[in-house]
């Protein structure tokens, strides 16, 4: 066979079963676009800013678990993409980003739209490649997919100079499509050691992290909790891994977590972290995190074990495989006292949701949306107070239906991630909870959502401020609100109209609940404008850098009475 680099690249994507890519064409990737257009079997979604292409790929990858692809040209396009790449790195999302680069002879000459994106993306990718010949693509592209999906997933960037795209090369056969590597093997002694710790514990607690979703370990983790008589907490990345209403689920731990989760962490004598990485937003002040507990840490990434908290036992393994093996060694049906205690804890110190009946209040709006969106809905958020309200209170039932920017905390994530999810799973409604600050950071993607006519419902909780910043200024900076309130008020309904998107304003709707029902009965994209008072706080809250026991607001006062 004789083909150009661009044709090889598109052929390899097709063989890798990629059916959709998002991106923007430009000078240094036009040969790729030409080959993509001629191929005709891969759907291209034209975004309005390259960062959104990265987040669309993320949205697709997060709901399917398979690597998804974003395309961008060189220079500013590649740097625009970088935030979404970094976001994928922090949340372990498998994406493959293919950037155009200036021709090989011009590399290093400060050519037009030249930037060393490989150099820039080193800390933000699992790995990256600068492709030096068309023939090299046959090896590099399958490897990129292999790396993105293997072990702890993550982003891979492939930088392809324009003259590599046009270079013609002969080759005998296509390489095999890439598959993820086998997870690391673990020893039966690791299982026995872990089982000893669990069986010896009086008050064990499971911390379910994003790795549980990555490895499809939900079912076995719930089995473990039930068999061992161990309650569990689900981190921000793991929401949906366990039914929120499961009696053993004490909710989300950490800075804006449920009191019941944080109290149980304080009280447990064994903390079993499964695919969780002791993020500072979960632990608060590290020295005072689960102070009386031994730690058992299971993570597919060996470098996570002992990174911030020393484990009494740590094993680098796939969560599902390890927990399954562990189950056989667990003594069943013990600890009725501990279970009674945590049931009481959950009943007394679960999440307080003031205003849950009122669709014009944060928790009430979320509850009403949940009731009309249905159990199949995929939920995305941006970053801020709305994100924490949804994380705290949305009735998550299933894994891979909750998409949020956890590690990097990227405002602007929600809308393009929702578009990506809707493209990947067209049969399901997608809800994007956003705030006015966040939505403005990728507002241009309203055009993409309308153009693709996707079933995306944007719930815009508008307080005309940078709410979570405002809250920190209110609580920790003497109430000095500075540069977190917007002086100009954007008319988002008019903005939506300008983009050709259907919209409704809950402020003027006579009956917000029935208005929401009508919106969700329709399969086109909608913007739902929901004004929220800037005074609405998200509680509880652990002050940044403080111990979780210094949680304030909500049910936080319970700490004093423990």
């Amino acid at each position, binding site marked *: 066979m004789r083909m150009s680099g661009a044709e090889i690249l598109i052929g390899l994507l097709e063989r890798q079963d990629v059916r959709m890519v998002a991106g923007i064409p430009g000078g240094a990737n036009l040969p790729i676009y030409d080959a993509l257009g001629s191929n005709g079997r891969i759907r291209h979604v034209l975004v309005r800013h390259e960062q959104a292409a990265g987040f669309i790929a993320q949205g697709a990858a997060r709901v399917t678990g398979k690597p998804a692809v974003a395309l961008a040209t060189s220079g500013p396009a590649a740097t625009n993409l970088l935030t979404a790449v970094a976001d994928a790195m922090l949340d372990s999302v498998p994406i493959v980003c293919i950037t155009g680069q200036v021709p090989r002879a011009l590399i290093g000459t400060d050519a037009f739209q030249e930037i060393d994106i*490989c*150099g820039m993306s*080193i*800390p933000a990718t*699992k*790995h*990256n490649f*600068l492709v030096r010949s068309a023939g090299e693509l046959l090896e590099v592209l399958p490897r990129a997919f292999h*790396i993105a999906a293997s072990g702890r997933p993550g982003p891979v960037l492939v930088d392809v100079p324009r003259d590599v795209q046009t270079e013609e090369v002969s080759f005998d056969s296509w390489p095999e499509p890439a598959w993820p590597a086998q997870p690391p093997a673990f020893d039966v002694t690791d299982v026995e050691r872990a089982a000893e710790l669990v069986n010896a514990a009086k008050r064990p607690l499971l911390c379910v992290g994003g790795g549980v979703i990555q490895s499809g370990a939900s079912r076995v983790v719930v089995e473990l909790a039930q068999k061992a008589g161990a309650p569990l907490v689900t981190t921000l990345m793991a929401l949906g891994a366990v039914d929120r209403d499961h009696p053993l689920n004490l909710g989300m731990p950490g800075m804006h977590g449920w009191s019941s989760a944080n109290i149980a962490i304080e009280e447990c004598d064994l903390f079993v972290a499964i695919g969780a990485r002791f993020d500072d937003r979960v632990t608060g002040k590290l020295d005072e995190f689960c102070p009386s507990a031994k730690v058992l840490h299971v993570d597919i*990434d*060996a*470098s996570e074990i*002992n*990174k911030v908290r020393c484990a009494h036992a740590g094993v680098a393994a796939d969560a599902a495989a390890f927990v399954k093996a562990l189950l056989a060694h667990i003594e069943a049906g013990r600890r009725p006292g501990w279970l009674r205690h945590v049931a009481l804890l959950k009943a007394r110190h679960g999440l307080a949701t003031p205003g849950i009946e009122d669709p014009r209040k944060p928790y009430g709006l979320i509850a009403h949306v949940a009731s009309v969106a249905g159990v199949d809905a995929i939920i995305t958020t941006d970053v801020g107070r709305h994100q924490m309200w949804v994380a705290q209170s949305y009735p998550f039932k299933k894994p891979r239906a909750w998409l949020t920017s956890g590690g990097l905390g990227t405002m602007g994530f929600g809308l393009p991630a929702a578009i990506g999810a809707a493209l990947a799973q067209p049969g399901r409604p997608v809800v994007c909870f956003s705030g006015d600050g966040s939505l403005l950071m990728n507002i241009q993607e309203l055009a993409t959502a309308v153009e693709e006519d996707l079933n995306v419902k944007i719930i815009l909780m508008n307080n005309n401020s940078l709410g979570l910043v405002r809250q920190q200024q209110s609580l920790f900076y003497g109430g000095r609100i500075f540069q977190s309130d917007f002086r100009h008020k954007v008319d988002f309904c008019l903005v939506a109209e300008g983009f050709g998107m259907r919209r409704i304003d809950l402020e003027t709707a006579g009956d917000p609940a029935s208005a929401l029902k009508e919106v969700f009965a329709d399969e086109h994209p909608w913007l739902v404008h929901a004004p929220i008072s800037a005074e609405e706080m998200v509680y509880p809250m652990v002050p940044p850098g403080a111990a979780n026991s210094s949680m304030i607001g909500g049910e936080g006062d319970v700490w004093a009475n423990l």
Partner: protein
Amino acid sequence: MSGQIFETAGDCRGERAILEITVRNHPGVMSHVCGLFTRRAFNVEGILCMPVGDGTTSRIWLLVDEDERLVQLEKQLAKLEDVMSVSRHGANHEVFVRLEEFFRA
């Protein structure tokens, strides 16, 4: 990557260790290794790198502080796609000792 030797300024506090890293030899691999240390806020006192055998691999020698984070750094290094092996030697390993005469003030 041709053979290059450079040293970062540093005083002589504490215990030192030497890491021996075998990597795939192609452009950019030094950036990946050095960038890792910068990113994890870990100081590198000296670097030595040369191709090995037919040049498909290179060996990087790093002179580093031996503190409790070194194990973590070794694990992070091992995760890099182009790193084939990582091993640790004591500070008395002679690879850097012999170079001292080239670095007299």
